[in-house]
């Protein structure tokens, strides 16, 4: 049975237990950890997290985890950032000021655009199910070698966010999602670094498939 050793980075932000539970349900040996040796000893790394970007970076730095994550990334082993964890992979965020991220993937975190007043009915944060679509540049086979392998059509996943990722290299974006005035990168993959804005651990079978693909990478 497939049971790669996965470390889930605990940096004091958000709910890690559902990520762990979801990974275990598909056969991973998943441990929640803020210990740099344990993180560096894992075969796969998941950086989950919800909440504010600055708090997230602060949480990583206070625990001395930014360095070990970069080191893990440099080793070529797969890393998956989820929600805030995906945003932290980028260079900067504009959430409440400008804050530096881990800079593993070149890009910027910006806010979803607000509805223009008068009659427009969409709410911020985006809370709920929305579709993953192929980016404009891509052909139908784009997902074959990514964490989205095996998904067909425009699968629905669960979003819970106010900020979005924008990448310097548009081809690192492997799925886009439309919400309000934005068509944004909802999943990216750059070499061994993947990031997903929605929550695969709460997205039913589709989400579990994404996590399974990550384990099999």
């Amino acid at each position, binding site marked *: 049975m497939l049971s790669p050793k996965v470390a889930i980075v605990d940096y004091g932000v958000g*709910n890690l*237990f559902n990520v762990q539970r979801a990974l275990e349900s598909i056969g991973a040996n998943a441990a929640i950890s803020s210990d740099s040796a344990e993180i560096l000893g894992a075969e796969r790394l998941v950086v989950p997290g919800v909440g504010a970007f600055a708090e997230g970076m602060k949480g990583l730095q206070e625990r001395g985890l930014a360095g070990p994550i970069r080191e893990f990334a440099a080793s070529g082993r797969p890393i998956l950032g989820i929600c805030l964890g995906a945003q932290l992979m980028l260079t900067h965020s504009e959430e409440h000021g400008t804050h530096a991220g881990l800079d593993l993937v070149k890009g910027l975190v910006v806010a979803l655009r607000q509805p223009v007043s008068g009659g427009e009915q969409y709410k911020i944060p985006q*809370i709920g199910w929305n579709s993953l679509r192929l980016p404009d540049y891509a052909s139908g086979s784009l997902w074959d070698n990514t964490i989205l392998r095996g998904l067909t059509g425009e699968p629905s996943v669960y979003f819970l966010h106010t900020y979005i990722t924008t990448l310097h290299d548009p081809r690192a974006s492997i799925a886009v999602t439309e919400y309000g005035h934005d068509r944004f990168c909802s999943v990216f993959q750059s070499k061994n670094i993947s990031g997903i804005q929605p929550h695969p651990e709460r997205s039913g079978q589709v989400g579990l498939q994404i996590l399974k693909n990550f384990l099999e990478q």
Partner: protein
Amino acid sequence: MSNIRVIPRLDIKGHCVVKGIQFDGFRVLGTAEMFAEAYYANGADEIIYQDTVASLYQRDVDLDVVRAVARKVAIPLTVAGGIKSTANIRSILRAGADKVAINTAAVAEPKLLRDAVKMFGSQCIVSSIEAHRRPLGKLEVWTDFGRQSTGIDAFEWAKRVVDEGVGEIMLTSIDREGSGRGYDLEMISLFATALPVPIIACGGAGTVADVVNAAKLGSADAVSASSIFHHFYSDAQHAGVSLRGRYELRLESELDSGNVDFLQKGYGGLRDIQVTPSSIPGVKRAMREAGLSVRIEATGGEYAVS
């Protein structure tokens, strides 16, 4: 347009799902796990777990029951009932909840919402507002699961909780709750069109049309219903597979209390049911036919960690 979320709501007493009328006269319908599993497999977009007595009896939510429910589902779980502190929220999230909804303690101490938002993020903190319509039409906030009047205007309170940073509002009409007479559309529409955060409409769904109307006419961002789903999925004839046969109602512990007669006597007593049962896909089909956007695919399968 965003997808309208369809959210079955489990009213919990002990480890069982109960259903009352206007938050009173609870009947036991089955175990929390049983319903959670059925709803996940049949395409629920989220699940609301409402402890019906925690606030009233000043108890904490039973984390073992939250854990058991969370284990059955891979969709978001919101837990409500008797939440008093950020420490309390942390333990509920650790038990597997994705969000918590707070009413009574927030009315007593609004700072709790702000503190919780700062600590866990606004996407995690839901304000639960339970409103009672006074004779002249004024909407008043009630606490302790419909037991305690506060004199606070519900709409003013809603604006306040948005300022405190909550990510969502779960809006229940106490008057309609359990009645099957339909949602309070006037109230839902007022809140949903004026406030910048998503509104979950609760209380009153008796038919599929009621649920459609909450979104279509009430502009709700999410619709919650309990009886119409509970009665559908607990009836073997509807659900296809008898859920009751697969679960021991009493598990190993004593039943908290509550009226189990309804359960023991089966589901033949249609006179007692105030609603027209429907499946979750049935509701979603009707919503789509009404021009609303919903997530259709069922998640299917079983999600359980051994």
